[in-house]
């Protein structure tokens, strides 16, 4: 068997070679760029050390975008989790006809994100959009869904939830199907109410799946771009400008690639800290809570 294992590393070569060239090298280069004042338009670059980072961290626009990101991230992930979990439980309960529902409910997630965003934009468009046209029928004055700072945030959260709730639902539904049914039967025989079964049997058993799905959703919200780009472009003003949108503006509109790289690195650090905290927090809540 030892002879056999020998040379297996050769199988890694193409893939890891690729990853080194197209992933690690560019990432390293981005970190390197973050120490330069580099305007791509003129091609001039000067080493400035940590100045990009200091600039960014003392800037109101960065904190505004950070705050916006946090509101949108927590708003949409909370909504997705609650609705997704409820749907997963409903599907689990139905069993037989669940298949048709799961496919239909899944559609918004699998559609090209840009296309999904357009679908929503045509719902929310003022006056002729489906929502406004419906409200106007009943003589209700509609709000400016994408044009007022508060409603734009709400719309973006709902849009994110529309696209990503199916993912949460599917992961939790799969986890539910993997549950040990004898536990559920035991709870039923003991006469536990559905609520108690949910709280003391189902949720504890699902904790790994819950941590997993919340973590990947938070990671994705922090870097998700397509929906906001199409729906609001970060506006009105900077009302829905997330960190990702701001990085895009810096890097590809203003061509300040050094500063944009620094912002990318900051985002990475924020996401890493957030995930560590969440994993630890949820794990602790789970171990300490249910005794």
């Amino acid at each position, binding site marked *: 068997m030892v*002879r*056999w294992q020998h040379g*297996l590393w050769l*199988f*890694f070569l*193409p*893939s*890891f070679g*690729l*990853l080194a060239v*197209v*992933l690690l090298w*560019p*990432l390293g280069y*981005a970190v390197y760029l973050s120490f330069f004042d580099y305007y*791509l338009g003129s091609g001039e670059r000067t080493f400035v050390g940590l100045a990009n980072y200091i600039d960014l961290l003392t800037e109101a626009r960065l904190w505004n975008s950070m705050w916006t990101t946090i509101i949108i991230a927590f708003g949409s992930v909370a909504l997705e989790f609650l609705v997704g979990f409820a*749907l997963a439980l409903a*599907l689990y*309960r*139905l069993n037989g*006809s669940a298949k048709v529902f799961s*496919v*239909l409910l*899944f*559609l918004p*997630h*699998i*559609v*090209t*994100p*840009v*296309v999904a965003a*357009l*679908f929503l*934009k045509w719902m929310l468009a003022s006056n*002729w959009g*489906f929502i406004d*046209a419906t409200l106007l*029928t009943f003589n209700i004055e509609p709000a400016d869904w994408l044009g007022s700072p508060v409603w734009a945030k709400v719309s973006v959260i709902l849009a994110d939830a*529309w696209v990503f709730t199916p993912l949460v639902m*599917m*992961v939790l*539904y799969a986890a539910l199907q993997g549950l040990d049914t004898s536990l559920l039967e035991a709870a039923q025989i003991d006469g536990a109410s559905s609520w108690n079964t949910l709280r003391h049997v189902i949720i504890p058993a699902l904790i790994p799946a819950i941590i997993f799905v919340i973590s*990947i959703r938070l990671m994705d919200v*922090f*870097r998700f*771009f*397509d929906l906001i*780009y199409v729906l609001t472009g970060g506006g009105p003003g900077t009302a829905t400008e997330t960190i990702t949108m701001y*990085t*895009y503006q810096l*890097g*590809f509109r203003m061509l300040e690639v050094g500063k*944009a*790289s620094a*912002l*990318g690195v900051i*985002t*990475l650090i924020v*996401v890493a800290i957030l995930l560590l905290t969440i994993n630890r927090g949820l794990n602790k809540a789970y171990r300490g809570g249910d005794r």
Partner: protein
Amino acid sequence: MSAQMRVGQQRTTWLIFIGLCLFTFINLTPLIWAVLTSLKDPRDAFTIPPTIIFEPTLKYHIQVWTENDFVFYLMNSLIISAGTVFISVPAGSLAAYALSRIPRRSAGPILSALFTIRMFPHMLLAIPFFVMGTFLNMIDTYPLLILALVAINQPFTIWLMHGFFLEIPRDLDEAAAIDGCSNWQAFRIVILPLARPGMTVAALFSLLLSYNEFLFALVLTGTDTKTLPVAIASFGGEDISSWSLSAAGAVGIMLPIVLVMLILQRHLVRGLTAGAVKG
């Protein structure tokens, strides 16, 4: 269980069923509305109240694919997606196979490292790709976008294929080794045929991911290599007067995906948790 309880349970099941029907319908409204709009003439598209009774026309579906450059964008999308799949899936499968055959304590860290890569903001990758692409004069060429898509696709492919390879018993490789096969022969002759269904799934998911990708396509392509998502975003984003036309385009882009999804149904959860579709 008492009869009374059973009746109660049945009633709850019905309530859940009706609730789900309602929710599904409301949830699909944006999609239905877009499909309806794509079949409407402007006089039906711009009405208050919104109408569902109208004479449907396929005019705009035909127009968007014949009078605009959408066929060209579709070709770009297909070339780029196919290129990504042909690089990413073979390389990823080889690595995944090796991962599934080395001891777990060595495979674990590699797998979690790959999973961590998911965390990287794509922006942090798009910037260096853009800068290097500018240097190398490769902006608006197929290879640049394909390489970028391989970068975000590779960890996903390895994760997905790793799961498939784990399901193929190790005894098979060992038997092959005893018969005198080299690693490569064992892989090619014994394992690969068994892994083909898994590779098909990985290829379809990768195809979907590349077809749907927007950020890299937006910043790395130009007039020569523009993909469908970039085209529809600029086309349907602003002007509401050509509403039916953009709706027809958007619905057209969606159709092949629905088809792929129906094929992939059984594997959806696995693919999604590995990070398909939205990168």
